């Protein structure tokens, strides 16, 4: 566990609310973008748990619902900019699919700010840090996500 992650865990232990974000990052762009943010020593909140996926188009709606079910306060799907997909059209397909998921979540009554999509290229370390910063700031006032979370008691 890194120092930053330990801080988040500590904050949680002391009863302070720290949003937990599950970030599905595409292997070719956003994941490399988050790497760049790291090697460039850009400071940003450590609330996001990155999960590298082959392509944003490979993110099944099941992943998103499952993340919420396991207690994520926010879910981020991030991929290459339109036209830059390593698999030519994966992010176009993702855009459609994610739109449907977003609409459905909103209709059921989940706060729209809990689910987000972004395009982050491998050169956009600064943008990645900004996306995470904004997400954490937007999630904080919402409080813990209890709606879709599995009741394990």
């Amino acid at each position, binding site marked *: 566990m890194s120092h930053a992650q330990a801080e988040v865990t500590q904050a949680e232990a002391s009863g302070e609310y720290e949003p937990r974000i599950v970030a599905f990052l595409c292997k070719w762009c956003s994941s490399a973008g988050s790497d760049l943010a790291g090697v460039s020593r850009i400071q940003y909140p450590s609330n996001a748990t990155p999960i590298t996926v082959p392509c944003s188009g490979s993110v099944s709606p*099941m992943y998103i*619902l*499952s993340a919420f079910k396991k207690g994520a306060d926010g879910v981020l799907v991030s991929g290459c900019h339109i036209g830059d997909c390593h698999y030519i059209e994966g992010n176009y397909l993702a*855009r*459609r699919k994610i*739109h*449907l998921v977003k*609409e459905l979540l909103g209709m059921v009554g989940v706060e729209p700010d809990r689910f987000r999509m972004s395009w982050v290229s491998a050169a956009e370390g600064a943008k990645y840090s900004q996306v995470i910063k904004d997400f954490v700031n937007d999630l904080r006032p919402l409080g813990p996500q209890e709606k879709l979370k599995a*009741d394990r008691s």
Partner: protein
Amino acid sequence: MIAVQDIRDTARDLLAKNEVRAVIGYRRGTNGMFAEPVVITAAEQADQLVWDPTCFHNLSLYLVEDRKFLKHVKQNPDLPIAIVAKGCDARAIVVLMQEHYFERKNVYVIGVSCEGTGMLDERKLASRGIQASDAAFDGDDLVFATAQGEQRIPAREVMADRCLECRTPCPKEYDALLGEDKTGRELAEPFAALKRFEEQDAVERWKFWERQFDRCIRCFACRSVCPMCYCDECVVDSISFPVNAQTSAEEKANRVRWIERSAVRSENITYHMTRAIHLAGRCVDCNECERVCPVNIPLRLLNNKMEREAREQFGYEPGASVSVPALVASFLDSDPGKFIR
């Protein structure tokens, strides 16, 4: 509504000339006036067939069942199977062919135009306490034969919402078409229930769904009745995970389970939302899932939401044509992307 004799004649003719191996249609059931699905295989059985406002079942489900059975017995008969299809059933058949579940030559579609009538809603009828032995359209009214005599109700009040909102009451894909392509009545505004529902704020909407999903008993009737839920393995119950005497507890514990089968709210909501997503661009609004739900969960709202998004954002109409690519397998440059940062 068209005369039942036309359907019987067509079916008898097809079976007598040995052009089809069976006809899927409706017959009088044992539950009062309500029709039930039937498969007839001989010309002399054709007189069993009925056609009335209680033929609400989506028969394309039985094409799927037929396909599954043929696969199981490893047969591939040359003759097609005929099916009596309303506008909605024909849309479902188009979606199944779009997904290559069967080929066009495997099925003979006896298209039946609803001609501006439609099907009854059992629940609307039950809430009025009508127990009838027969129902028939007479102009804008439905006439019920009850023990107390004839009862006349404006059709609009007891017809299914999906029929009131139906935009394609006449099949587009057929081998034989009975009846004319006409609506004959003023259509209700499509997605009316969804629109009403969405006028509430997010807190109320969640309260509503929380209550609905708490009630789901996970009987999977919605899945069983849906012609689009034909997957061999459903994400809810994994059958490809072999459990034998050598399977360790750890292996069992570590297998991926996206959705548990237990009927608790979080699992129910994941199940129903996953199902709605899986049906996006495929659901033809036959509303069978809502009809068979034993606890009356308004599943049509979820499916309508996806249908409306597909129509308004992506210009996609489920079941409109066999040749267009599926909703989530295609894209346009003009797809909405404003929500992406």
